[in-house]
Every structure is written in structure tokens, then in C-alpha cells.
């Protein structure tokens, strides 16, 4: 249970510096020393007004406190702190006219929804076709010496050990299912359950992918050899970042 204490006050005319110095440098700390007081902050009324003709607000200064407990407990503790043998010091530079009220939150703190950032998985692994540029492709490489095609791309050929014999090679986002399995657990950011699988691209390489367009409970119906097509989409969510990568789905889905 969190209670907000709002104290609005003014300085005694001519003693503004003294009042502010006491309030900021001593009084807030005194309040925070009372069990339950978790946070404190001071504000000064801005000269800007929403409605220029409206009457001036009677208080120039606001102190806002967060208290862990009920309002009645708050005032009980505040009362105890300001009375008895060693009461909390209240500066005479503070005008006696004050507004002291406790407020109970009725909503949580809401903030403007942040747009999700996106970033591609890895670097230079795929190209998202987009409307004009055609279907998405994976960016692999092909050896000019031995014709080996691989994904992801390398510079030197792993098949014939050719030095810098690989050139970039676009791989069609089409292939056939090699194997798949439904996972109830995954690395952080993957919504479970999901389907993991391997696809053999029409261009040759076998690529790991998650499989979309299929309800995980229908996954057993996927056949080895089933035709799959690639799309580029969000595959993972880490904090406020969506990670975009490839997914394959049955052509028929």
C-alpha cells in the first residue's frame, strides 16, 4: 500500500532563501528518516499558466512524499515525529498556512507506450524483399573454384580451402523440411511453444529455422520433404527490442 503525501507551502516573506535551504537540505532528510517514508521531492510552481486569466495558485512550493503504508499510519508517524520530547524541527521561515493531504493511488504509473525497436538478427544474413524488391533472400556465398554454395557466407571456401574464392550468392527462400520438433522451452525471448526445424534450401544449404504458420499442436502433421517458403519477420523479443529474422512456413498454410 503506497500513500502519497502532498505538502503545499510558502516561505515567510523575506525569508525565502532560509526556507528553501532548510526544506531541501534538512527537512526532506528528516522526513525520510521516519520509517515508511521512502521518497521525497520538492517542486516550485511554474509561472506558466494553462489559463492565463485563472487565479494564482495560493502555494509556491510543493513537497511530494511516497510512504509505504496507509494514510492513517503516515499521519500517526508524522504526528509522533512532530511532537514529544524531541520533535522534528520546523523552520519558522515556512509560512504557517499550508495544505497537507494524503492521496491513495488509484491507478499504477502509466507511461507512453514506447515503440518497439527492431533490429535484424545477425548482420548481413538476409535481405527482406519488401514490396518492390521481390521475395526475401538469404545471403550466402558460392565458390568460384569448386561451386560450393554455403550459408552463412564466408570469404574463404571451406570445401576446397580456396583463399578468397567465395563470392556473395543470394539464396532463394524456398526449400523442403528436413526435420522439426515442438519446443516447450527456448532461449529467452522466444514465445513458447514453438517449432524448431531444419530446411534444405532449393539452392542446397541446410538451414536452421523456426517454423511458422502452423499451430504447434498440429506440428506432427508436418511431413519430411514438405515444401516451405521463407518470410522475414519478428522472431524474438528482448526487452523493448524486436529481433527480426527468418521463418519458414508450409507453402500450403
Amino acid at each position, binding site marked *: 500500500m503506497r500513500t502519497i503525501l502532498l505538502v503545499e507551502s510558502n516561505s515567510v516573506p523575506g525569508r525565502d532563501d532560509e526556507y528553501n535551504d532548510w526544506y531541501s537540505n534538512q527537512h526532506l532528510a528528516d522526513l525520510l528518516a521516519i520509517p515508511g517514508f521512502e521518497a521525497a521531492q520538492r517542486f516550485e510552481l511554474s509561472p506558466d499558466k494553462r489559463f492565463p486569466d485563472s487565479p494564482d495558485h495560493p502555494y509556491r512550493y510543493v513537497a511530494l512524499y511516497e510512504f509505504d503504508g496507509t494514510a492513517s499510519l503516515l499521519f500517526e508517524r508524522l504526528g509522533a515525529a512532530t511532537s514529544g520530547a524531541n520533535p522534528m524541527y520546523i523552520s519558522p521561515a515556512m509560512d504557517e498556512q499550508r495544505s497537507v493531504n494524503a492521496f491513495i493511488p488509484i491507478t499504477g504509473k502509466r507511461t507512453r507506450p514506447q515503440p518497439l525497436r527492431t533490429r535484424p538478427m545477425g548482420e548481413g544474413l538476409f535481405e527482406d524483399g519488401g514490396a518492390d524488391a521481390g521475395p526475401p533472400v538469404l545471403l550466402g556465398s558460392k565458390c568460384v573454384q569448386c561451386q560450393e554454395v554455403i550459408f552463412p557466407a564466408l570469404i574463404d571456401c571451406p570445401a576446397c580451402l580456396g583463399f578468397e574464392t567465395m563470392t556473395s550468392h543470394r539464396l532463394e527462400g524456398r526449400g523442403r523440411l528436413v526435420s522439426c520438433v515442438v519446443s516447450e522451452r527456448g532461449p529467452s525471448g522466444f514465445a513458447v511453444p514453438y517449432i524448431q526445424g531444419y530446411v534444405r534450401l532449393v539452392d542446397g544449404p541446410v538451414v*536452421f529455422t523456426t517454423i511458422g504458420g502452423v499451430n504447434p499442436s498440429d506440428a506432427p502433421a508436418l511431413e519430411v520433404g514438405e515444401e516451405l517458403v521463407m518470410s522475414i519477420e519478428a522472431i524474438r523479443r528482448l526487452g523493448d527490442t524486436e529481433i527480426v529474422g527468418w521463418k519458414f512456413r508450409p507453402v500450403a498454410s
Partner: protein
Amino acid sequence: MEIPSGSVVTDVTVVGVGMHPFGQFHDKSLWMLARKSIWAAIHDAEIDPHLIDVAYLANNYSGFFTGQHDALAPIVIGRAGLSGFPMIHVKGGGASGSIAFHEAVIAVKSGLYRMALVVGVEKLYVPGDPAISITAINSSGELTVGTELGLTYMADFSMSTKRLMDRYGWSATDFALIVEKSRANAMLNPHALVHQPLSVEEILNARVVAFPLTRPMCCAAAVDGAAAVLVCDAELAARIGHGDHPQVAGIGCVSGQYISNRVEDPRPGMLALNESGRAFAVAYERAGVGPEDVELVQVHDSVAPEELLSYSVLGLCAPGDESSFLRSGATRIHGRVPVNSDGGLLGRGHPISASGVAQVVESVIQMRGQAGNRQVRAKDSRPPRVAAIQNAGAQGGPSGGTGVSAAIILKS
């Protein structure tokens, strides 16, 4: 003890072995686990620790958990009281312990070093947070086209397993039989994690991790443990000698093809074990033995089907006969070729860098006849004289092959 210079190194022997039990030791730090195994090996060898002149420490994930990424070898071994000699930190997924052993063998075989210490130690257990251990272990696989795309080891194993089941006619019952065997062996091993047997029924009906693998068919990796061995040249071993020291007759260490469409048996997923086949071809040749001579086997069974596949990959049976070989009882503790006599990864637990060294420890104990009520008896009721060890680790690349596979043949 005087050590004459210029001796020719002809054979490399294992003269000391030691373990810290595998389990959950939240209160014990990495170096506490390690020192127990190190001193157990030193006492087992009955040597003056001053003889140690090189050390290899296998550990993968300490940096992930503690921030201590580097300087691990001198720190961990130094805290056991030992220092002054070269110390090398080794990583390589599940194979790191075997790689460390491989390096020690090379060091001694070169003649430049006489007594090598090998320690494999890992802490992966975090109470209340099993997911973090998986995150740590994921760093042993290629992240960019693996984990970051949603790949998990268990799913990878599952996919490989299904293809092998189709190809060779395996069933989930075969896997359950292996688990039952491993757990029964582990019950006889005081250093193992598993202390409860499970029936085939219970194993088949347990929670599915990734079809068709149920929880008991997958090793427990969020486990702590350490194992250590001492390796030295035969001449020095004879002078320490208080018994037969098995020799490292053959060793083969290979890595998987990083990426290729021409991998001979393109079987995506980590169960390919192509690399183990190649490693064993090298080890058998160097040792001058064939699979028919092998009397004891330790394999890297991170999931039960991996052990089943190893039967044909190691040449113990023909490809496709793995299931009938298993069901013949040949690989049980009192069978013709016992596999994973101490429970293997499934029964012992898999504190990743420690496993490869623990495989050597078990092999040596068995060959000395010191294995108590899990003692393997070969022909004429004698302890085994030819032991094979298979280990594999880390994902080698987008083609899914293993990063490193090691094959070791010990002879006595």
C-alpha cells in the same frame, strides 16, 4: 627423486586418478572442487607433487558466472597449492576434459615434460535458476545461426534422433533401456549424481523434453564436479610404480566440418557423430587395436540415443544393428563390452568440463581392478585391458557437427 635427463619417451601412462563427486554443491567454490580431485590424484599416484611440470585445466563457464574469464588455470591450480609450472586453460564444450587430456599426452610424448596434471572442473548448478545454466551452455554452440534463432540443444538432438529412428528402426524403448542401464551403474558409483533407479516404464512415461526424449533420457548438466588425472612417461611411471599403469595406446582428436553441403552424411543436429567415427579410426590405428579388442567403453551420452549411435560409430556393431546389440545385453556391466560402467553422463551427471576427465578416471579404476561392486570382468574374469573413451563437444558450426571429438584407447 633424481630424474635423469635425455630419456626417450616411448609410452605415456596414467599414474594417478581422483574425483570430486558430481552433484549439487552450492557451498563449494570451483577451486574447492578442483583441489579435492587434484590431491586425490596426487595421493593415488603416491608421488611428490613437485614432480608435476605442466598442467591443463578444463573449464568452460566460470567466466560466465563469476566474471573470471581469464587466468583461471593458475588461479584454480594455485589455490591447490601448486604453481611454478606452465598451466594451460582449455575449453571445448563437452570435450574440454578430453582435449586437456590430449594436450597432456602430447606434452609428455614430446619428451619436454614428464608429469602432466589434467583437471576438469565445472560449476553449473544455480539453485532456483535452471535457465541460467542453459544460457551458459548455449555459449558452446554457435550463437549467430543457432541460439539467436531459437535453436536449443535438446531440440537439435530430438530432430537427429527422429531421423536415426527412421533410418535404423530404433524405438523409445531402446533409449529407456540405456537409461535404465546407466542409472543402475551409477547406483554403484559413489561419485555419481544419480542415486535412484528408474524402470523402463517410468522412463518412457516421464515428462517429454523434446519428443521422443523424456527427461531421464537427457543428462543433467546443471551439476558441479571435478576430476583429475596424472599422466607421465613410462620410465618415470615404472619408478613410481606401485602397480600397473594403463598406457595411452592411441588418441585421436578431430573437429567437425564447419560448414558444407557435402558432409558425407548430412544429418543436421548434434547427433551426427561423424567426427567420432573419424577420431576412432585414428585412435584404433595408433593403438594397433580394432573394435573387437575393446573390453570397456565410456561414451558421451548427453542423450540416450547418442550412446546407441556410438555402438556402430565405434565399430562395436554394424550400422543398423545398434538396437539388437543393446538388447543382447552386450553393453551391460557384465556383458561382453560394457558401456558407461560408471553411469556415463546420464548416470553420473555432466558438469561439462569434468566429464571427459571422469571418463579416464573410470577407465583406469576398472583396468586396475579397483571398481568394487561395479568391477567389469573381461575374459578369464580379469579386469579389462583395452578401454575406449569417446567424447565430443561444442557445436562446430552451422552444419551442426561437433566442434571437437576425441577418441582415447587405453591399454594395460
